[in-house]
């Protein structure tokens, strides 16, 4: 047997580690800013730094920049060692690294300048989507190349999680990003309304599953045994964990749409699978924690293990809470409130954050052949981060629960006790302040970590090329009579195919019936396409990220129909590319907004929300009264909508702007009657037109 000498590429691991730290700080800082913008609305500055624009940057930065780079850092380190091979191609590693960082920068710039698809966690516009696909493919080639030239026959379970991640993220990204370009930075989702919602939350939910969970489980199965210096508690359990998790996760997406206009059977499917997910998730958590059996004394001293224990515990907590939140009765209370925000932050800060920190503290001293600069600072980081999570989550649970009860409370006479939505917001304001404090603590911890790790790097030298040796894999080694599964454990290609099949089953079963319904979706005769001005207004609504605070989905509860009006029907959204149902009500639902207030109310409210609603925390959109509406884009937008099947008459694209100017003028005239003088070519006119249209289609006649 020949022993081969080679070296591990540590430089790429170091680069991803630095990116993780830097983007982590940026993402958390943005989180703190938007957390402060709620109690202190004056922090919404100008056009580019409003809550609606920063919030998507925060979520994208945490998910794809912080956690994304964290995945690549851990994966590039562990994969090389598990395969006993250097990464397949240094050039691809570099391309992957710089490609990913440029995507992040492009994302931040485009989102702040208002270029967004309006679909949560998939906000990036189509050219960036294509770039993501290219970089992801490069990463996949690099990874599978490494696996194929490995010197260890068995693929350790962490690698399975990596494979499932690469395959599924590719599928999710492609399916959810199908869109019709209008211009270089504007596109419309190919799906509309209910279908768009289903695809989006199939994506959204599985982005949590296959971007925030499976790759991190792979890291857990590598780094926890490494840090504890003992093998995983049960390898059998890890196999169940893997297959059951990837099989079940993909079905659970519809639990984000309970009580919405999504067909009931799909909602129930989502609930059932979410409950089942509890089993593999907790199997995984127990497996992680029990790996430390007999090493608990070391947890007291070793800060790395401390971070990991909190991370795995947070994983257990969120994966318990998730299924509970998918019960319809619980969801009726939790949905649209800060409860969801608390839930995702237990996952994001607790599971992803703490595991990343643990891995960084373990990894950096090893890469630099030195010891951690300060164990004290690391310990400080651990405590302030753990407390920060509590200070963040507990007030948000409280706020979510309290606000939901206020929304639903009736007086003895049967009228809403808090008819003014704003009152339920001002009541929970102290909770928002406490939450910001929690975020500040968490960020402070991360800053000390950055300092500590930079000092560690300075005192050591990077072991860029770590020498290693391993016997070459004998090509035609006779297969042991062993088990059939061992066959697959050795074959990455078959593994890719099998995991793809497993994840596709759930998606296919969910999608086919819903898409078949398309031909006979409850069409409502009175539902008409948007007028050109409303369409432009809708694009402004999307651009400003209004959906980050306002839903457009009245659920069939008495408390909601009393407050907002008739509950939302599936047939009302057939021309909504993309759907804008939203997922959080920091402000009231807007689906029945049309005709509720006069145009002049909207004018003043957009200029300064506090004039119409004293104490309002909505940002001012006064700039819309200054900005001219770009009507040169109208024909292209109409044509794109026609391609998607929206029934505008043929040749309407060239006539659309005539109708647009007419409608704009009538709104401006109406405002003039109310002593407001504004040119009819301003953006504000378009957004008023859109808001006045919302939900009015079925007001006149109910054809259902």
């Amino acid at each position: 047997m020949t022993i081969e000498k080679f070296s591990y590429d540590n430089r790429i691991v170091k680069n991803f580690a630095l990116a993780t730290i830097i983007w982590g700080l940026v993402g958390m800082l943005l989180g703190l800013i938007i957390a402060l913008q709620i109690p202190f609305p004056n922090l919404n500055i100008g056009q580019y730094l409003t809550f609606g624009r920063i919030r998507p940057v925060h979520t994208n930065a945490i998910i794809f920049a912080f956690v994304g780079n964290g995945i690549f850092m851990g994966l590039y380190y562990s994969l090389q060692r598990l395969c006993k091979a250097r990464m397949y191609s240094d050039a691809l590693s570099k391309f992957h690294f710089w490609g990913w960082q440029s995507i992040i920068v492009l994302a931040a710039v485009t989102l702040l300048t208002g270029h967004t698809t309006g679909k949560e966690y998939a906000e990036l516009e189509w050219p960036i989507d294509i770039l993501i696909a290219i970089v992801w493919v490069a990463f996949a080639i690099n990874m599978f190349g490494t696996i194929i030239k490995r010197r260890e026959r068995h693929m350790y379970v962490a690698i399975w999680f990596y494979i499932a991640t690469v395959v599924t993220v590719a599928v999710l990204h492609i399916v959810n990003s199908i869109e019709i370009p209008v211009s270089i930075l504007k596109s419309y989702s190919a799906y509309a309304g209910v279908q768009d919602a289903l695809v989006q939350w199939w994506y959204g939910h599985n982005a949590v599953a296959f971007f925030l969970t499976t790759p991190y489980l792979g890291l857990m199965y590598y780094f926890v045994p490494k840090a504890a210096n003992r093998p995983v508690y049960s390898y059998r359990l890890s196999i169940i964990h893997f297959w059951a998790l990837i099989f079940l996760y993909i079905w659970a997406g519809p639990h984000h749409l309970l009580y919405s206009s999504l067909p009931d059977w799909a909602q129930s499917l989502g609930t059932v699978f979410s409950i089942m997910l509890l089993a593999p998730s907790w199997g995984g958590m127990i497996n992680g924690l029990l790996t430390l059996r007999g090493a608990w004394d070391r947890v007291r001293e070793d800060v790395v293990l401390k971070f990991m224990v909190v991370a795995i515990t947070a994983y257990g907590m969120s994966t318990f809470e998730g299924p509970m939140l998918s019960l319809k009765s619980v969801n009726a209370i939790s949905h649209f409130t800060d409860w969801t925000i608390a839930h995702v932050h237990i996952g994001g800060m607790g599971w992803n954050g703490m595991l990343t920190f643990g891995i960084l503290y373990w990894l950096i001293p090893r890469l630099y052949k030195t010891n951690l600069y300060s164990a004290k600072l690391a310990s400080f980081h651990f405590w302030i981060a753990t407390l920060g999570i509590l200070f963040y989550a507990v007030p948000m649970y409280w706020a979510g629960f309290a606000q939901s009860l206020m929304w639903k409370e009736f007086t003895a006479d049967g009228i809403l006790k808090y008819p003014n939505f704003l009152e339920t917001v001002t009541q929970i304001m102290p909770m928002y302040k406490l939450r910001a404090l929690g975020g500040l603590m968490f960020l402070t911890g991360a800053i000390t970590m950055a300092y500590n790790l930079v000092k560690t790097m300075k005192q050591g030298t990077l072991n860029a090329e770590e020498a290693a040796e391993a016997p070459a894999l004998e090509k035609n080694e006779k297969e042991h009579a062993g088990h059939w599964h061992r066959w697959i454990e050795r074959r990455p290609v078959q593994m890719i195919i099998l995991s793809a099949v497993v994840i596709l089953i759930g998606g296919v079963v969910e999608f086919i019936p819903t898409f078949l319904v398309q031909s006979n979706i409850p069409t409502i005769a009175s539902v008409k396409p948007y007028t050109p001005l409303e369409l432009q207004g809708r694009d402004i609504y999307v651009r400003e990220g209004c959906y980050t605070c306002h839903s457009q989905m009245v659920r069939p509860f008495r408390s909601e129909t009393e407050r907002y009006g008739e509950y939302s029907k599936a047939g009302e959204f057939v021309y909504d590319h993309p759907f804008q149902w939203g997922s959080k009500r920091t402000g009231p639902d807007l689906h029945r907004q049309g005709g509720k207030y006069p145009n002049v109310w909207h004018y003043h409210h957009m200029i300064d929300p506090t004039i119409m609603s004293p104490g309002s925390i909505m940002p001012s959109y006064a700039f819309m009264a200054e900005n001219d509406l770009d009507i040169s884009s109208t024909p292209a937008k109409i044509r794109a909508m026609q391609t998607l099947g929206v029934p505008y008459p043929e040749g309407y694209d060239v006539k659309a702007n005539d109708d647009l100017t007419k409608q704009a003028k009538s709104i401006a005239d109406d405002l003039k009657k109310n002593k407001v003088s504004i040119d009819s070519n301003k953006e504000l006119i378009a957004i008023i037109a859109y808001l006045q249209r919302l939900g009015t289609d079925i007001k006149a006649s109910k054809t259902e």
Partner: protein
Amino acid sequence: MFRNNLESIAGVSIYPIFSLIVFFAFFTVLIAYLIKMDKEHIEKASRIPLENSELNND
């Protein structure tokens, strides 16, 4: 309302049955596999991450 929509799809009843069969088969195969795995192999596989740790400086 939605039930009516679904009923109008030809052969929609195959979906629940298909799902049940897929499910049952998936977990049966998984359990069969776990029962049949041999111990030595598991032991070896679970130690893979701990190999060549002497190259590190701990």
